[in-house]
């Protein structure tokens, strides 16, 4: 088993952190092998950013995805830019408010991550909502492992908010599966 995952969005959205949380959940809080790599423009904010994670039950050689099994997009630009090499059967998850032009003639999971984050009072946890949604849709990682990874990766004073965001994300992911 080997899964190539790409999380993308605009710089400042916490794309790298999302990938970090997923990779850590798989390899620290579960027994998978995982590598996470990233690329982003020279600017710290804005532009298209992506974070890529490989999760495997065997040692990982080449550390970058060759083809993508799971694409998670949180901005239009990144959705348009980082989709060329995804597999025909790739699972696509988008924030449908942020990726308005998502009708590309194939089924995809829609999660209103930013909207949920705003409901929770802080847009900054959009990425964590998305991690939650991804966890539900992906299915391979134990919910508890990802939750622990979230707690381990965010500043202590925001733990509660992030747990809420993660749990709302889990739910939104389940709903997205039903809707599809």
């Amino acid at each position, binding site marked *: 088993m080997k899964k190539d995952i790409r999380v993308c969005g605009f710089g400042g959205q916490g794309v790298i952190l999302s990938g*970090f949380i997923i*990779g*850590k959940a798989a*390899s*620290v809080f579960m027994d998978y*092998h*995982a*590598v*996470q*790599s*990233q*690329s982003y423009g*020279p600017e710290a904010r804005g532009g298209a950013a992506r974070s890529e994670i490989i999760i495997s039950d065997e040692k*990982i*050689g*080449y*550390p*970058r995805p*060759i083809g993508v099994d799971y694409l998670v997009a949180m901005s239009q630009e990144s959705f348009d830019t980082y989709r060329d090499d995804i597999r025909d059967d790739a699972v696509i998850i988008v924030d449908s408010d942020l990726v308005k032009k998502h009708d590309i003639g194939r089924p995809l999971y829609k999660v209103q991550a930013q909207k949920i984050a705003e409901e929770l009072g802080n847009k900054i946890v959009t990425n964590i909502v998305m991690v939650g949604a991804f966890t539900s849709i992906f299915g391979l990682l134990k919910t508890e492992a990802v939750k622990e990874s979230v707690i381990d990766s965010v500043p202590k004073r925001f733990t509660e908010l992030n747990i809420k965001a993660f749990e709302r994300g889990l739910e939104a992911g389940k709903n997205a599966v039903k809707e599809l």
Partner: protein
Amino acid sequence: MKYKYDPKRIREVLGKKVQFLLGDMACVYGGLLAGCSFFGGYPITPASEVAEGMARRLPRVGGTYIQMEDEIGSMAAVIGAAWGGAKSMTATSGPGFSLMMENYGFAAMTETPCVIVNVQRTGPSTGQPTLGAQGDMMQVRWGTHGDFEALALAPSTVQECMDFTIEAFNLSEKYRNPACVMTDGEVGHLRERIIIPDEKDLKIIDRVTATIDKEKYIPFTNSQTRKSKVPDFATFGTGYRTYVTGLTHNEKGFPATDKQPDHERLVKRITTKITDDADKLVMVEQLNLDDADVAFVTYGATARPAESAMEMGRKNGIKVGLLRLKIVWPFPDKLVTNLAKDVDKIIVPEMNLGQMVHPVREFAENHCEVISAPKIGGEMHLPMELYKYLEGK
């Protein structure tokens, strides 16, 4: 405030035993575990995370972090700190490494232990700052003027970024020579699981300090207390009143700039202290070589797609193996010659236009075919690209 090595405290500062960590940060962890108490550096992509990690943690373990004015000064301060009694390191990338060449040579000439982490990026010149490369593999060996020996390791994983930084300190202390961790923008910016050793599992080698009577001490000659070409180290402030110069010096350390025998004696000792031990310094990983007809000889990040290509080859019935150099310099010449006798073809993939392929050729080409498999531009070889070399395409 004087630093005291306290591995328990260092482990406390580093945190959990199992982490999902950035390659650059793993170099920080390695340095701290080895007892590094001084870091002098200058920010540069993709190595800045090493400086950032040190700036955050060194003060918490009682060490000193200084952001120097440039990489020339960084290397200088690192050497000064070593003579002041510290274990010291810096981290940089190509453009900074070029600036460090001056004092890298000074460290070799004055037998100063210190560690340089080079998170390689593409060059020449400013190149592609955020992208990885392996373009400094010859620079680390020959980049400073005159005769010297390099100690260089090339990590392929985040775990090795930490392990090899510790090993670089150990080698550096043992041989009193600068040692380099030649990582790159790929491995440096990967995150992977890393297991941090407990205090009791750390294997740390420290410099042999001078203990002989001050009147009898000779600073730049074979050890006076053991069988070794590495002199016992009388760091500053210990009462030995050592004079250290980058000029050719006699055994007492005094300038001997116009005397051929003094120069020959000095430079032969500082090079053979390492080459004499070359066989002991071999550190490699060998995969599937027993029955191999063709072998990748590889190192660092490139070993990863090479291993993937090897697995593809094996699945398709090609008898392919892999020799991965963990220590790149000194070069494991005998091992490569022996491998060349056993296989028909050696492929050397590198993220440069062909650097380590040269020593491979030197020691292999009388016995088998040697092919360079270069890739530049800041991207690793795809496994398929390397697989094609196996099919002879």
